[in-house]
């Protein structure tokens, strides 16, 4: 139980949000990746968060950090597009694009970056308090 625990907990949030940002970046980067078969099409990824007892990370039992539980692939059907002139078109003249809504991803990204900022702020405050406590009685 110390101010460093607060930093640890906020730190778990920073790494979780970073994974989330990476997944979002990957989704947006591959929004226009086409392929010849529906199976090969890029699937949007989304990380699932899980609260984890700080005791599993360090020693204290009462505090909860956050961890990536697993990364799920969203099962959205790829969009088929009739484009016979495309070099990747299949024998019926279709190419397949992943069904990624860039606007949704952007909203998701903003949420992740806000959460990141919140945790940074918590760390900063904890740091300031710890520094002031260190200079106690000087």
């Amino acid at each position, binding site marked *: *139980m*110390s*101010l460093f*625990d*607060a930093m640890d*907990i*906020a730190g*778990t*949030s920073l790494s*979780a*949000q970073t994974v*989330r940002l990476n997944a979002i970046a990957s989704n947006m980067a591959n929004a226009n990746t086409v392929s010849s078969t529906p199976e090969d099409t890029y699937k949007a990824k989304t990380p*699932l*968060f*899980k*609260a984890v007892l*700080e005791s599993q990370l360090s020693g*204290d039992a*009462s*505090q*909860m*950090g*956050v961890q990536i539980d697993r990364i799920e692939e969203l099962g959205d059907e790829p969009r088929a597009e009739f484009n016979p002139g495309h070099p990747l078109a299949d024998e019926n003249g279709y190419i397949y694009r992943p069904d990624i809504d860039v606007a949704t991803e952007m909203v998701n990204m903003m*949420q*992740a970056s806000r*959460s990141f900022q*919140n*945790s940074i702020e*918590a760390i900063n*405050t*904890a740091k*300031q*308090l710890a520094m*002031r*406590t260190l200079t*106690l*009685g000087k």
Partner: protein
Amino acid sequence: MAASGIDKALGISPQVLALRTQRMNLLTANIANADTPNYKARDIDFRSALEQAKTSLAQLNMTNTRHMPLAGSAEQPTVMFRQPLQESTNGNTVDAQSEHAAFMENAMRYQASLQLLDNRIKGIKNAIKGEA
């Protein structure tokens, strides 16, 4: 018993700081888990927790002259779940705004207690040195 004399002079501030730290950790956990599905926001009732810390200190029995008084550690306070004003669809009960407000308030009050403690320590130091 010189140590307990100084302890007495420091008043309740050490317990307050310990509790504030605990509350800060809880609030940080709430902020960290703002996006975690099914996470329930938690907090402590500061008044009753401080009351608990005070009485647990007073109840400490010292049957031997070499027993040391309990240092400024607040007893593990009772952690409770927050009643959400509006629950989100993923079962998360963290209200980021109110958590932030509580976090900042807690930090301010921590600093206030720190200032009090600081002044008391300075007073004791002055008394020891015999300066004005």
